[in-house]
């Protein structure tokens, strides 16, 4: 029994020490940055230049290599944010709150990129800049959830309280993620159904899948790069705050 409880929380407690996390981050940061740069540039070159044009849409479809990975990232980051919020809420893991807080702006930007590229793609293909179909509306709702999360986090002076309040909001909003994912299957509206499924072969030409997947890997690496930068900033800000509080406490004790 004793060994079981000792080992079960090991990976979670591994990064509870911010100093150990910062050492780990310093080691992997250059590699992640290189992977991000290489993959994004490769995907852009392949997607915009090398891959042949679509037989129905011509060259306009190439925005798919930015639009689809951005949408996947927007959803994935929300799930990560919700999981980190749950970990911070339940186990009071010190880094989990910071991971959630740092991921929110990145996720909001990816959602915005997805909506804007989708709008730019829709204009020549569907003839309209915007349409209120199920998936697009629920992605807009996702953007509002991100913005609400950021607003709630910053509304509290005490960062711990702010983190816990926005954790509740993130967990309540998780219900939107399956709605976005499955809305194209259940509501028969304008946005096309899913191309990738676990059980069937993808309905897209194999040569076009490669840049898409490379871009996803590049975006994930980019997310990690920005996350590490933001986490370093959050840990430093927390240290400054603790130092200031200790300073005020000492003045109060001496003065």
């Amino acid at each position, binding site marked *: 029994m004793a060994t079981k409880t000792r080992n079960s929380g090991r990976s979670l407690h591994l990064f509870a020490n911010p100093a150990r996390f910062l050492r780990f981050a310093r080691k992997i940061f250059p590699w992640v940055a290189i992977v991000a740069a290489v993959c994004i540039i490769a995907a852009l070159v392949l997607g915009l230049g090398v891959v042949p044009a679509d037989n129905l849409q011509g060259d306009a479809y190439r925005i798919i290599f930015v639009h689809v990975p951005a949408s996947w990232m927007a959803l994935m980051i929300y799930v990560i944010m919700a999981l980190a919020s749950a970990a911070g809420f339940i186990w009071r893991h010190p880094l989990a709150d910071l991971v959630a807080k740092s991921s929110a702006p990145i996720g909001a930007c990816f959602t915005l990129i997805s909506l804007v590229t989708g709008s730019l793609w829709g204009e020549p293909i569907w003839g309209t800049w915007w349409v209120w179909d199920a998936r697009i509306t629920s992605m807009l709702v996702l953007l509002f959830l991100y913005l609400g999360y950021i607003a*709630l986090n910053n*509304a509290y002076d005490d960062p711990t*309280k702010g983190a816990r*309040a926005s954790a509740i909001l993130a967990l309540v909003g998780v219900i939107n993620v399956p709605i976005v994912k499955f809305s194209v299957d259940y509501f028969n509206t304008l946005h096309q159904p899913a191309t990738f499924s676990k059980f069937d072969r993808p309905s897209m030409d194999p040569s076009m899948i490669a840049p898409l997947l490379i871009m996803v890997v590049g975006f994930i690496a980019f997310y990690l790069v920005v996350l590490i930068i933001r986490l370093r900033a959050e840990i430093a800000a927390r240290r400054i705050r603790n130092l200031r509080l200790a300073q005020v406490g000492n003045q109060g004790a001496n003065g």
Partner: protein
Amino acid sequence: MVTAFFSLVRQDFRLALRGGIGSLVAVIFFVIAVSLFPLGFGPESTLLERVAPVILWVCALLATMLSLGRMFDEDYEDGSLEVIALGPLPLEGVVLAKVLAHWLTTGLPLMCAAPVLALMLNMSVEGFAVLMIALALGTPILSLVGSVGAALTVGLRRGGVLISLLVLPLYVPVLLFGVGAVEGAIFGLGERAHLLILAGGLVIALALTPWASAAALRMALE
């Protein structure tokens, strides 16, 4: 514990009644906001009856959002929320009691005003019954989900606007299915599916939101 629940509801209701006109701010806003639309459209417009369900639902949503601030704020500020939290009723029960009181003073008056306003907007006759059922299912959802937003921002200085931003993503489905139900009845497309989804949403909200609101209140009372 049941007596504690109902005594809390009765206390809140009595406080709202004694508050006079101020507690009816939601209904008054609802009536005023809906009245602006026919004035804007002008007398000769046939567009008004086409958009009547949407106007009613959007204004009901906005009116409820306005009234959410007073759910927990006054009790938090004068300390009675802490006293209630120490009582025999668990915090989730307290949240449910407050939501019930809020619905009795906001949702129910909205439902009473809605048919009169629907007449004013020239809404088709087929939609009235479904409008009442949809509002009866939807306004409790609005109060329940709104309690999460109110609990998360209790005691904050600039909490009022933030509540609207927080609950808006969760109010959108209620709006979609509420309007869908009424328009389904008017145009003969069938309202049953929308009403069933609203009922399902009410059950989910009843099951999940008290826990979220209680967690937020516990955090605020620390």
